[in-house]
Each structure stands twice: as C-alpha cells, then as structure tokens.
C-alpha cells in the first residue's frame, strides 16, 4: 500500500534520512524501531508531507505523493498521529474528533465514524464534553488516535504512542492499538518501546542514524541478539 523508495530527507543542511526503503502492505502492522535521533519521526513527517523528500519517492497505492501538501495527503488516506499527542487542549473531546473529520468527505460520514470511535474508546464517550487538556496522558493518546480515525484513513501513522505514559497505561494502549488493527486498518508505528511494538507488528525495520539497518518479520527481529541487547534489555 505504501512504498518509501530511496528517500533522503532532512532539515536545512542536516540530513536525517539516507536512502531509506520501506514497504507497508495493506492490512499489515509495520514497526519502525531505533534509538533516539535515528530519524524515526522524520520518516513519519516525510510520509505525512510535513517534511519534503530531497531524493527518492513516497507512493501510496502506486501513486506518488510527490509535492502533495500535508492536507492533501490526509485526503489521500494517510492519518498521522504526531509525536507527543498534539491534541487541541482547549477544545472538548468531541470538538477534537470533529476537527479530525475536517475534510468534506470525512465530514459527511461524521456520525458513523464518531460512533465507531466511541465504541473503540468508551472513555472518550464518557468525556466527550470535557476539555481535551484535562484528560490523562493515556486518554489524550486515545483521543489523538481517535481523531486520526475520524478522517477515515487507509493507513495510520503512529509516532511514539507510548511516549510519557505510565507502564500500565502503555499495556492498555497497545491492547487498544491491537483492536484498531483488528478493525482492518493498516498501521505504521514508530516506537522506542521495542518489546511491546515487536509483539504487535507483523514486520519491523530497525533504523539507525538515518539508515535502515535491519528489516524482517517482527518475531525474527526480536530474537536477534544485537537487537535484544541494544533495545529490549534482555
């Protein structure tokens, strides 16, 4: 569904990604793991159009995303849950979800999608009239994911969903992401919590200093000695 081929990208003089190749097939959950500063977030931002590629190409269902602006990419079916949640703190939970369905096509389906999101995250339904800034970290992350689902995406990009969450909350969150997956969404997820994410994903890529170092089935990757030593802590 998504092909990232030979992408090089960065900020100004600085190059954060070198010749990165990555594929996500329909229905798959793919993880990108790696240490801080490896370029994981940059990769997400390239796919969602917030950072421009310098060389190479990103294709969705065979068609290049080319110079499509960020909002155009959402319209093409990629929803980005940015790092650090980035909900709208002063808007209520429901208003946040409404903003997620900003595009005309999504707005028309609003009633149906919002019901599904509430079903998936019942706690959001309970707090629909509450300001999003007053939610707990875990709830905010659920809201961020729910908001991304509102655009009716084919592919969801999750950037560090466990960031800053208590360990118990991390487990619950990954359960929820599994449920989102079972709903049939294709997921590309970036995580530092390697053990959790490898148990969730089908395939995984290991990114180090801007380059793909290893790729393979998530289970195989989790078994490799150097991955275990470096990232899982076993």
């Amino acid at each position, binding site marked *: 569904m998504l092909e990232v081929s030979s992408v090089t990208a960065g900020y100004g003089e600085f190059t954060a990604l070198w010749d990165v190749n990555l594929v996500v097939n329909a229905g798959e959950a793919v993880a990108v793991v790696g240490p801080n500063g490896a370029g994981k977030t940059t990769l997400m931002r390239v796919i*969602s*159009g*917030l950072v421009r590629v310098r060389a190479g190409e990103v294709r969705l269902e065979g068609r290049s995303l080319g110079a499509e*602006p*960020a*909002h155009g990419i*959402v*319209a093409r079916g990629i*929803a*980005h*849950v*940015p790092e650090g949640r*980035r*909900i*709208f*703190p*002063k*808007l*209520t939970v429901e*208003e946040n979800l*409404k*903003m*997620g369905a*900003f*595009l005309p096509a*999504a707005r028309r389906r609003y009633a149906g999608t919002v019901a599904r999101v509430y079903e998936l995250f019942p706690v959001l339904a309970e707090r629909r*009239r*509450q*300001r999003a800034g007053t939610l707990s970290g875990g709830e905010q992350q659920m809201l961020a994911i729910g*908001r*991304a689902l*509102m*655009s009716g995406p084919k592919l969801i990009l999750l950037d560090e969903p466990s960031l800053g969450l208590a360990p118990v909350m991390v487990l619950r969150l990954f359960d929820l992401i599994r449920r989102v997956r079972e709903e049939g969404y294709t997921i590309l997820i970036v995580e530092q919590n390697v053990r959790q994410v490898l148990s969730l994903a089908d395939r995984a890529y290991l990114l180090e200093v801007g380059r793909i170092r290893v790729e393979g089935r998530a289970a195989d990757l989790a078994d490799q000695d150097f991955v275990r030593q470096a990232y899982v802590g076993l």
Partner: protein
Amino acid sequence: MKRLLALVGVALLALVPWLPLGPARLYILHVLVLVLIWAFVGTAWALMGRFGLVSLGHGAFLGLGAYTTTLLWNFLGVSPWIGTPLAAGLAVLLALVLGYPCFRFRVVGHYFALVTLALGEVIRLLIIAERDWTGGSLGLTLKDAGAFNLAAIQFADKRIFYLVALAVWLVGLWVWWWVDRSMTRSALEAIGEDETAAASVGIPVTGFKLRITLLSAGLTAVGGVLYAQYVTYINPGTLAGIGVSLQIVFAVVLGGMYTLLGPTVGTALTIALAEYLRVAFGVRFLGMADTIYGLALVLIIIFLPAGLYGGLRELVLRRAAPPRAAT
C-alpha cells in the same frame, strides 16, 4: 429575540445624531465617528488576532488605504468609490506578499509579530521618503470638493459621516460574525492551538491563515480610507507606523478580542479615556494620560485576560447560566 434586540440597538444608534446633545453636540458626534472608525479597524484586526496571528503592523494597511484614495483623488481626480476597492486590493496584495512567505515557512508567534512590526515602519518611512507627492511627514490634505459631494465622499455635515461610519462598522461586525460561525473559525482555532496537529487532521494551514490575513488587511485599508475621508487630512504618524499599529492592538486587547463587541468596547473606552484625560489634565501633567492608560492596560491584561468586555460577559453568563463544561 436576540435579532430584535440588535435591530433596536442599531436603530437607536442611527438616531443618535438627531438627539438633543446640548452645546457640545458637534464634539460628541466627532468622538463617536472616530470611535466607530477605529472600532471597525479594531474588529478587522481581531479577525486574525483572535487566532494568535498577532499583527503589530496594521498601520501599514491603514496608511496604504488612506494614501491610495487620497493621492488618487488629489492628483488624478479619481473618486474614492473607485479608489476604495483599489486601496483594499493593494492592502490585500501587500498582505499576500508579507503573509505567504511567513506562513509557508512557519514564521509564527513572536517572529510573525516582529515581521509585521517592521512592515508598519517600512510603510511609514516610505510615505515620508516620497515627500514630493505624499507631503512627507507634514501630511496631506484631501482636496476640497464642497460641503456635500457624494462622488468625492465628502460631507461637511457630521451626521452624514456618522451614518456612513455606522454602516461600515456594522459591515465589520457582520464579517466578524460570519467568520465566527463558519468552518474557518474551527480551522483557525485548531491552527492557533497547534499547527502540526491541525495539519495532521488535514487542515490546509497556510491557506486558512493567508485568507484571514488578507481579509483583515483589506478591511483595515477601508478603515484607513474612511478616516481620510472624514478628517480630510492624513499624515504618516497617525496612519502608519508603530504608534497607530499598537494603538489598534491595545484597544482590542482592552476590550477583548474573542467577542463580537470586544474591539468596539475597547476602542470606545480608550478614546473616551484619552479624551477625558486630555480635557482633565490638559497641558499640566504631560504624559499623565499615557501613564493612566498604560496602567489600566497592564491591570486588565493581568486580571481580565479575555478583555474588559469579554471578561465581564463571561462573568455575567456564568452567573446567569448553570456552569457548562466548555465554551
């Protein structure tokens, strides 16, 4: 009910010039016209200011508007009826030249404010530098077209100008209200809270910011034209540069930029305060008026961040209605 109330209010306002106002009638009318003009400009500023797009250079659009129509009339005899759309168009163009690179390259917050601050000064200095036809810092007098000239929009009778200013101010309020209840508002609120998040849900960030900026600039230019037509004398100090730009911002902040009538209330108060202090202190305590004005502003920003009108309105609503979770 609300609509009826608004209609009655407008009708009453329209009748003001015909009320027996006593010997100070002309002076009162003059102050009211100024309040309406500046309230309109303040409302135009608040269109973008309320979304965190703080411009400290709206004097640029004001001056551009005023000088465009005045120069066209004085030198080429072009009626302000034609000059006004031209002036608004030029302001929109200027806003585009300024806004597009700013928004495209994420010049936000304080940096955006600084860019606009510079713009206001650039326009003021340009007007001064082109003294051969703008009159430089001495200013420019609108060529007289008689006591009542519809084509030149010049009326000696203050009552007529009062009605003109009232109409323009109402248009400003209508535009504000129209933006307030459109999708544009939610989009811009989201952008104001977090640009990255807004982009991630598919809001065309640059486009929305640009559109509201162009709208605000165009309306502000119309305000400048109105001022020039009314006072028939313009100079770079009162219509461009930092001074007037900040005056607009202060008035709006004072009244509150998140409510329809906030900018108007703020403008009315600042003008009333300035006039009162001017009359009360005269030339005895130079700077006293500014000191009190500055002090009032500081206190309001600390204690009523939603502005005088906005803050009081919130209080009244909270008293009147059971608490709501959200606004």
